[in-house]
């Protein structure tokens, strides 16, 4: 992997990025639903070379019990990277970064969950990054929302996330690992598609206000495209099941 001092360009003369993408082009995204047996809901996402597995448990008894809430479900999330998911082996103990991402992911998803329907229970989300190549939090959020639907947990809408950023002075969509490391800014965004509400917004780097507004705009557009992939993945699962078992209305996702 080229280091930060590397002089190579992130955008070539033809306006293409290192992996051949255009400025506003997403990496290939594939979502599989219901891939785990023990979890109540699950999803697997491949997003570029990111490979992330998400399992959802709950609503279930809260452990330890004193954390339970009398008026709603306790929603918890854990973002965790496998030791082999990055270039240098990562210690399996959660880093400060993993603690932070677990928190922002929880806060990003909770507004869409009808937690008030399940008082005194917990809904637990486990995100395991098996391979990381930039943008794992957005991929993790996108997959988790699908896994929540797969678990049959009532949600207002699927949450979908996508970063934008600045490389070689240009605003681009969906930064890869090397673009994140060598670029000038990175901004993960998550939205609730039906309302357009922003439920995650982080940024680091340097943006002028114009750049910021443009980046926010393309992130939102990216989110909308990815939302279609989420819906398609759920629909495929649903149709397959419909074909094999007794059909039953899918209530977990309210599609407008």
């Amino acid at each position, binding site marked *: 992997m080229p*280091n930060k001092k590397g002089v190579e360009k992130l955008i070539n003369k033809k306006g293409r990025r290192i992996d051949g993408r255009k400025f506003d082009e997403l990496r290939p995204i594939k979502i599989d639903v219901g891939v785990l047996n023990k979890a109540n809901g699950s999803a697997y996402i491949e997003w570029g070379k990111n490979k992330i597995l998400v399992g959802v448990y709950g609503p279930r008894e809260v452990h330890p019990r004193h954390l339970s809430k009398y008026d709603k479900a306790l929603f918890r999330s854990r973002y965790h990277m496998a030791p082999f998911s990055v270039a240098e082996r990562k210690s399996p103990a959660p880093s400060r970064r993993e603690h*932070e991402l*677990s928190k*922002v992911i929880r806060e990003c998803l909770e*507004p869409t969950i009808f937690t008030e329907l399940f008082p005194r229970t917990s809904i637990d989300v486990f995100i395991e990054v098996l391979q990381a190549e930039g943008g794992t939090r957005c991929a993790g959020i996108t997959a988790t929302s699908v896994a929540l639907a797969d678990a049959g947990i009532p949600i207002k809408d699927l949450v979908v996330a996508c970063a934008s950023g600045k490389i070689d002075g240009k605003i681009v969509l969906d930064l890869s690992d090397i673009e994140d490391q060598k670029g000038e800014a990175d901004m993960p965004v998550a939205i609730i598609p039906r*309302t357009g509400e*922003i439920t995650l917004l*982080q940024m680091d780097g340097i*943006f*002028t206000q114009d750049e910021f507004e443009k980046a926010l705009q393309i992130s939102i557009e990216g989110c909308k495209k990815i939302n279609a992939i989420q819906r398609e993945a759920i629909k495929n699962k649903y149709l397959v099941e419909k074909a094999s078992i007794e059909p039953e209305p899918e209530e977990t996702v309210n599609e407008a």
Partner: protein
Amino acid sequence: MSENLGMVSKITQKRISELLKQDKRIDGRGLNDYRELKVEAGLIERAAGSALVTLGKTKVMVGVKIETGTPYPDTPDNGVLTVNVELVPLASPKFEPGPPKEDAIELARVVDRGIRESQALDLKKLCIVSGKKVFIIFVDIYALDFDGNLFDASTLASIAALKNAKMKDYVIKKDGELEYKANDISLPLQNYPVAISTAKIDDKLVVDPSLGEEIAADAAITVAIGKKGNICAIQKRKVGTFSVDEIIQIINLSKQKAKEIGAMFLKG
């Protein structure tokens, strides 16, 4: 800081909410008003640099220490910046002794990004021998009294403490050892980012939320503004959401407030 700060009563929260319907805040401020702000630098003589920031009833002390050590493998020519937050239990009935928890970690990382991404410190100038020996700058943030908005107070105190910091001037000898000289020098500070936090309570946006407002808030966001009004870090917090329009409005306000605060406390 979230809902674990239950010591602000439900009644207070209700009152905050009702007053906001008339665009009034519980402590009499306007929606865009910052609390009174005071910066005292240099109180801790044994630290290389220090600053105490008082923001309303919130008090944050930052101490800077300078040591030498090895650089990160992927940035062999850069000094190391380490930001740590201790939410010590005398600051709030809800802070407990022990290793930093989620809230403290997030705060440390957001302050760190504000400093790092604005390139406030020229880390290249803190390299002694490439790949082997660099200066390590420890920024230790100590919350002493917690009445809301630690993000802004901590960022300001950190920058003020870095600005206050002095180290012995030095020459790098052939063997990579340092020979210290008599005179003091400052750290290579080249930018003074200012973080501005805004909370959203029932569709009203209030800047510099107090503790009661933070608890009552649906969502909060911190924007760090660097040189020329550039945006260098953003962190949305809490389980509520923002519309795009609200975000744009917050960015505009943050730029204006950051400019005022920077001019008042960090100029020169």
